[in-house]
């Protein structure tokens, strides 16, 4: 789960990272009022989870509170990569002497929390990696004892942090690490970490991405989820315990298992169609879950047909078949359904599906072809 800049900064501030958090506003008037209370100039920043907000005009400097209000007015309601800006962050602007990139990631290859840092701050690390990779230090930390003082020293010397700022730098990296571990993050990034002209270290922008699997033990962080930036259907799916991602095609997919769900999408494409979604219904899908999955899929008006692909293992085929038949009666909208059930209790599922006059298929390839055909016929 990605956190907004202002949420990420709230967290880093709690862990002692020096920064000027600023305050969020949802109206120009609020932005103006906030600007009045802090040192000028201020910066007004769109709070969206997509990249490139600067280029899109979502970050503006204001010399006066009135200017802050005008900028907020321009930014609020703006659409950045399809996301409507609903919140801006108003914070004191810094006079930047130099900028760094400093991040921690969960490094799958190194199987470690890894520091990634560069003296080239303010630009995307992928850009630095492609232009001059030697400017980047990638340092895996020991997985059982974590961030050590010598790790901090090495990063500080790599970045050329001056002796008088080393204590403060230690606080930044220690805080970033503690925040990473404390929130179960996948990524905790400060970009840029700036040295101001008056010689202070400060985190000007921050991004934290949380490990979804760990959210269960961080109810406080779960509350930071920004539902405005999530598809309504994805929110509904999450609440129903269904793995769902909305896509742009016309063939709704309902599958058990993530790998098989991706494969089902791939085969729809291979059959000449476009998947409308990724949907993994999980194990042991009963009627209520199937019904929820139907509602979520059909909430998308583009969906012209549904492909249901169940490989019975934990999930029993006949249960799913009954669930489908039962749930179908509750639907607001009807589209052709192609059902393929194999594996555990597939034989028991077959007559149930036949009786309900559902289109069935033996192989996944066949199911995909039938679903694509059905969607075309329906269009």
């Amino acid at each position, binding site marked *: 789960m990605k956190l907004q800049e202002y949420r990420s900064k709230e967290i880093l501030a709690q862990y002692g990272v020096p920064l000027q958090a600023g305050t969020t506003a949802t109206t120009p008037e609020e932005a103006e009022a906030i600007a009045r209370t802090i040192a000028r100039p201020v910066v007004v920043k769109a709070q969206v989870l997509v990249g490139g907000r600067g280029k899109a005009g979502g970050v503006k400097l204001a010399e006066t509170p009135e200017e802050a209000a005008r900028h907020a007015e321009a930014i609020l309601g703006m659409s950045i990569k399809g996301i409507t800006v609903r919140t801006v962050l108003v914070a004191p602007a810094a006079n930047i002497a130099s900028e760094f990139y400093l991040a921690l990631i*969960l490094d799958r*290859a190194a199987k470690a*929390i890894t520091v990634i840092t560069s003296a080239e701050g303010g630009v995307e690390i992928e850009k630095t990696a492609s232009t001059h990779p030697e400017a980047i230090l990638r340092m895996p930390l020991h997985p059982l004892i974590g961030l050590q003082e010598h790790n901090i020293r090495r990063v500080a010397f790599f970045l050329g942090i001056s002796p008088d700022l080393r204590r403060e730098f230690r606080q930044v990296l220690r805080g970033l690490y503690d925040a990473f571990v404390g929130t179960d993050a996948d990524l905790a990034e400060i970009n840029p970490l700036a040295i101001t002209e008056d010689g202070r270290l400060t985190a000007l922008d921050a991004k934290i991405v949380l490990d979804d699997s760990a959210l269960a033990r961080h109810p406080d962080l779960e509350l930071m989820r920004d539902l405005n930036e999530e598809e309504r259907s994805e929110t509904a799916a999450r609440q129903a315990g269904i793995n769902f991602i909305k896509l742009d095609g016309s063939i709704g997919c309902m599958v058990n298992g*993530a790998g*098989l*769900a991706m494969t089902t*999408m791939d085969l729809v494409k291979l059959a000449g169609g476009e998947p409308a979604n*990724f949907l993994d219904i999980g194990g042991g899908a009963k009627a209520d879950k199937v019904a929820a999955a139907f509602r979520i899929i059909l909430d998308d008006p583009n969906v012209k047909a549904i492909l249901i692909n169940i490989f019975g*293992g934990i999930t029993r085929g006949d249960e799913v078949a009954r669930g489908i038949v039962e749930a179908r009666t509750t639907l607001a909208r009807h589209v052709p359904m192609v059902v393929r059930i194999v594996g555990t209790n597939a034989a028991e599922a077959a007559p149930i599906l036949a009786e309900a006059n559902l289109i069935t298929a033996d192989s996944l390839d066949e199911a995909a072809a039938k679903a694509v055909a059905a969607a075309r016929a329906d269009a």
Partner: protein
Amino acid sequence: MSILVSGATRLVVQGITGREGEFHSHAMQAFGTQIVAGVTPGKGGQTALNGSVPVFDTMAEAVREVGANASCIFVPAAAAPDAILEAADAAVALIVCITENIPALDMLRVYHVLRQQGIRLLGPNCPGLTSVAERAKVGIIPNDIHRPGSVGLVSRSGTLTYEVVQAMTDAGIGQSTCVGIGGDPIVGTGFIDVLDMFNEDPETEAMVMIGEIGGEEEERAAAFVKREVRKPMAAFIAGRTAPAGRRMGHAGAIISGGAGTAESKRAALDAAGVAVADSPSHIPQLLRAAGVGG
């Protein structure tokens, strides 16, 4: 023959008295797995699986009392890392963790502790493995999809694995061992580990690898195959249509920063001489084309 499990496997099931643990323990026992104990803290002294198996409070007892040498874990995510560490401390040789949604930082710790102790972990978030010829299964792969044979299969997925195994069985191509390594970013055993074992296993004549988007394990496996493997191989990669930046069900299945795409993995495997299928159903014909018999 088989890798990792065999008729000598003496399995303890952690969480045997839970709904899933009990269901799958029955299936494992029905398949032929030698289940010697269950562990559920607080239920020591009871029995499970219709009285056929003693339940202990701790793994230490299960190992001491009945000589368990492998463990299968059906314990909720909050308690699963501790269950794995307990099994490792009791020094079983193989731990298979079925549990999904274990926080990655917990697994990071567990991974390194087990590695240092020299204990093999499969998973988490995996369907386990089945030795077809030896009738030994640790995990949740359905019992009746197999046919004994000489193809070793390794996969990051669950039901997709079943799909491929079923397709092989239907085509008359049998399996030696089927291994699900799990869909999480940090898993105990990777593709290369399993491919290496298959490569050394005299009863495995060909291999199938089922990958998916995210990470670079498939690319690394391809490099390993190119360097080390001379047995015929086919592969399938799920997620060609997956959008970037989204986690596709599995915690590990995400394309990030341009890395981890299906195309990158397919290209790497292709370059390593592995036949890459467009659909799971094509796997049998690719194997046949590579000279694999019944």
